[in-house]
């Protein structure tokens, strides 16, 4: 680049060299690459820089995530505690939007992995000075960030609403300040879960639709199957005849699978993060098992998918 | 009496809705090797498909070996078509693939015909291996064998040299010349102009759905009279020769290059070429080299396309 400004008066003239110049500037290595891939992932999901159509879905999902909170706050300000029929405040919020979160994960997670693989853009990343796992983890981090934002957006609306509609805002905060670190912690655990399984599924197929359908199917089928196996009760009992009347004694109801039901419950993936949510908010556990076991199940459902993503990208070759 | 044309294209057009892929094209293809050339999207593939009977012209008619081609199953067995992309079942062995083609074409003695075809493309060693193990060039050759197995009189080949290596291209060249010398009609469409230049006796150049040029490419070059010929002359005294050349009315301009050679632009190149030796001798200048710079098929192609 020229160090002196060109002369613009008088009879002199200059021609500037527009030919190819070498690059002598900074080269920042893998950290710059990871940042770039991360932000590119964020923009991909939010549809930034890709035209209006790609922004519709993320926008709807964000509104969807905040909507129950808005409704709750409105009812609260108008009719008071009645709002509790919707869900149990911050503790119940994640359960409320769980279906929405799963939909988000199923539909949006593949966007970060499958197009690059299908269009073979991944090859162009693999020949740059980064590892394949740098790429994968930056994408996972991008997705996690968005899901966190999704989870927290509603919670923040809720908290603000609860504080502002309280008769004594300061008092409310003094009594309920624990809700804030709790929703942050629970939100993180939920977001991690919603990131792990859908992104792992997206790692193994090149078709976005297949990945989405598989994830939705996985949650639905496990939820329904486990429900049938654990909630439907058969009630064996005695029927006697006495004085011409039929008397039923001692109905003992138990789930179809008997004692095993409480373990089978663990197979309902979608319940795992909600269990962790309840743990954080100190609510009575839905499971009859000792806490360590559902925590372990949650660990399996998050760590294993993330490990699979790592492993699969590690061995990816052009 | 001139031989009958093998392929006759009469005022053929093909449109898809408002897109006119082929626009009122007429030409005849004679026995021997003809090259079909044109930029991407010019309509070459559409023309080839129609010639093979795979597509119906929207207007005009096509006759192959004297008969209308469309739906003419008996005629199909006298034509061999190799399209640019073709799904090949990788689990088949090369031999099975050629056998399949032979059976589809109703060949009488299948094993003998398959042997002969595979021998022609020099793949006898690899014939029992699955196609999935072949390199791209080998797959291309096996596809050619499948196209030849029924001994067709007319061969229509779309980008047959895709992925082939120099050695295979030399063999392909020899094979095509052999087949042509047997009286067959071969129509090759290719983007690799340097190959078509050595192989084809005539070319057909299609641009934007229309036939832009036909015939021997050097004759075509001479008809492009809005483009003066460029020649390069190396001699012992360039400026002296240049001074003499400029006096000729056949010369448009003479440029002296950095390396001392002369670049001559001439609209009446025949006159220049016939008088250059005399001129050099009279000026006592040694003539070392004389070469046309834009007479190649590539130059012709580029000039015709940019008209």
């Amino acid at each position: 680049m020229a160090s002196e400004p060109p002369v613009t008066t008088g009879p002199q003239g200059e021609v500037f060299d527009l030919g190819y110049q070498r690059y002598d500037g900074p080269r920042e290595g893998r950290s710059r690459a990871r940042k770039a891939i991360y932000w590119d992932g964020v923009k991909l999901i939010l549809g930034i820089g890709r035209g209006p159509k790609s922004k519709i879905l993320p926008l709807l999902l964000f509104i969807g995530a905040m909507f129950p909170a808005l409704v709750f706050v409105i009812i609260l300000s108008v009719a008071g505690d009645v709002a509790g029929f919707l869900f149990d405040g911050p503790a119940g919020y994640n359960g409320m939007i769980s279906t929405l979160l799963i939909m988000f994960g199923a539909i949006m997670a593949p966007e970060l992995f499958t197009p690059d693989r299908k269009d073979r853009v991944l090859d162009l990343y693999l020949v740059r000075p980064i590892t394949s796992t740098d790429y994968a983890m930056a994408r996972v981090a991008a997705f996690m960030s968005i899901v966190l934002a999704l989870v927290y957006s509603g919670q923040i609306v809720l908290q603000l609403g609860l504080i502002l509609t309280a008769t004594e805002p300061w008092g409310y905060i003094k009594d309920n300040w624990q809700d804030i670190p709790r929703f942050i912690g629970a939100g993180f655990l939920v977001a991690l879960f919603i990131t792990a399984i859908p992104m792992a599924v997206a790692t193994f197929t090149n078709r976005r639709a297949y990945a989405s359908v598989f994830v939705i199917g996985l949650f639905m089928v496990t939820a329904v199957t486990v429900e049938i196996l654990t909630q439907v009760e058969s009630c064996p009992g005695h029927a006697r005849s006495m004085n011409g009347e039929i008397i039923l004694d001692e109905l003992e109801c138990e789930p179809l699978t008997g004692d095993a039901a409480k373990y089978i419950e663990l197979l309902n993936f979608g319940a795992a993060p909600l269990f962790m949510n309840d743990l954080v908010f100190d609510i009575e556990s839905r499971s009859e098992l000792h806490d360590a076991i559902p925590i372990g199940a949650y660990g399996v459902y998050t760590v294993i998918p993330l490990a699979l993503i790592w492993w699969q990208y590690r061995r990816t070759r052009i | 009496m001139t031989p009958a044309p093998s392929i006759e294209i009469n005022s053929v057009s093909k449109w898809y809705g408002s897109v006119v892929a082929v626009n009122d094209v007429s030409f005849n293809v004679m026995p021997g090797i003809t090259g079909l050339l044109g930029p991407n999207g010019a309509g070459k593939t559409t023309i080839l498909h129609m010639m093979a009977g795979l597509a119906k012209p929207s207007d005009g008619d096509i006759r192959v070996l004297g008969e209308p081609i469309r739906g003419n199953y008996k005629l199909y067995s006298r034509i061999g078509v190799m399209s640019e992309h073709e799904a090949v079942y990788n689990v088949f062995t090369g031999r099975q693939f050629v056998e399949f083609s032979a059976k589809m074409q109703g060949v009488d003695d299948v094993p003998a015909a398959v042997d002969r075809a595979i021998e022609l493309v020099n793949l006898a060693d690899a014939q029992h291996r699955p196609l999935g193990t072949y390199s791209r060039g080998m797959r291309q050759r096996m596809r050619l064998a499948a196209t030849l197995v029924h001994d067709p009189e007319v061969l229509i080949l779309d980008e047959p040299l895709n992925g082939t290596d120099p050695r295979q291209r030399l063999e392909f060249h020899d094979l095509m010349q052999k087949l042509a010398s047997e009286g067959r009609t071969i129509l090759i469409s290719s983007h690799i102009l340097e190959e078509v230049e050595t192989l084809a006796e005539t070319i057909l150049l299609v641009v934007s759905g229309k036939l832009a040029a036909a015939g021997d490419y050097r004759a075509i070059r001479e008809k492009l009279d809005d483009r003066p010929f460029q020649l390069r002359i190396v001699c012992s005294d360039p400026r002296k020769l240049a001074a003499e050349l400029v006096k000729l009315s056949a010369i448009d301009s003479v440029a002296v290059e950095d390396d001392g050679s002369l670049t001559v632009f001439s609209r009446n190149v025949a006159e220049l070429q016939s008088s250059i030796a005399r001129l050099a001798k009279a000026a006592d200048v040694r003539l070392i080299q004389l070469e046309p710079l834009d007479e190649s098929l590539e130059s012709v192609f580029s000039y015709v396309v940019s008209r």
Partner: protein
Amino acid sequence: MPPLLQAAGLTKHYGSTIALEDATFDVHEGVTGLLGPNGAGKSTAIKLFLGLIRPTSGSAEVLGTKPYETVEGRARLGYMPEHECLPSSVTASEFLMHMAQVSGLPPAHARTRTADILRHVGLDEERYRAIGEYSTGMRQRVKLAQALVHDPVLVLLDEPTAGLDPGGREEMLDLISRTGHSFGISIMLSTHLMGDIERTADRVIVLEGGRVAQEGPVSDFTKDTTTLLVEVDDHHDEIITALSAGGVTAIRRGQSLVIEDAGDAELDAVRDALASSGARLRRMAPHRGTLTDIFRDAPHGV
């Protein structure tokens, strides 16, 4: 000047398949062609130099380091794959800026480099349209641009003219030549088309069956011989007679007359014979080799 790429006894086996066997060669500055059929080992060699696979034995070095041991070595290499590899919904500009950053350039520099590179490869207003709308030729330019945006020392091109029509091929070869000779970026061009190498490369390495069959400057293979070819439309016999009267032997081959060991005396005799016959001289030039000769003369597999 140490070589940019160095292969020493480079061997790669995939099970029982031999992809490369004991290949030893250097790639220096300038444009080097890697010529050979599919399956000859070209793509394997490229993947080894990019550090994507490890050799079975021997070594591949890029600027003195082994690329399959650290990823940082790739920072000064560029790669233009043969296959489609571009996203469709972003613009060339955005895509290049992103890739520049993935190669380590900070955002502001990435932006200016992108603008410069797109200008150098000849993409103007199209740079702000989505890549999905580009023609094949434009796409090839974007592919090349992403290989250049981080100012590599050497770019590996894999069949860069594949699928292009003659006009597009001409433009791409022109661009490659410019990149190698004007921009000063070294190039290794892997292709099965001799014409591509003859038109752009300074040196050629020929691979066959995983081994280096030949290597040397392209000019070695395409140099002028002392055999003179004189192509005339007519008067062949008259000219032959006139030449032999002066002691010069000419043999007719097709439309050409072939004169061996043509020196100054022979040139003058030819000129005079042409002048007196008035024949139309189409071409007068020494017989030149072509890369095809490598495959014509050498026995198969050597």
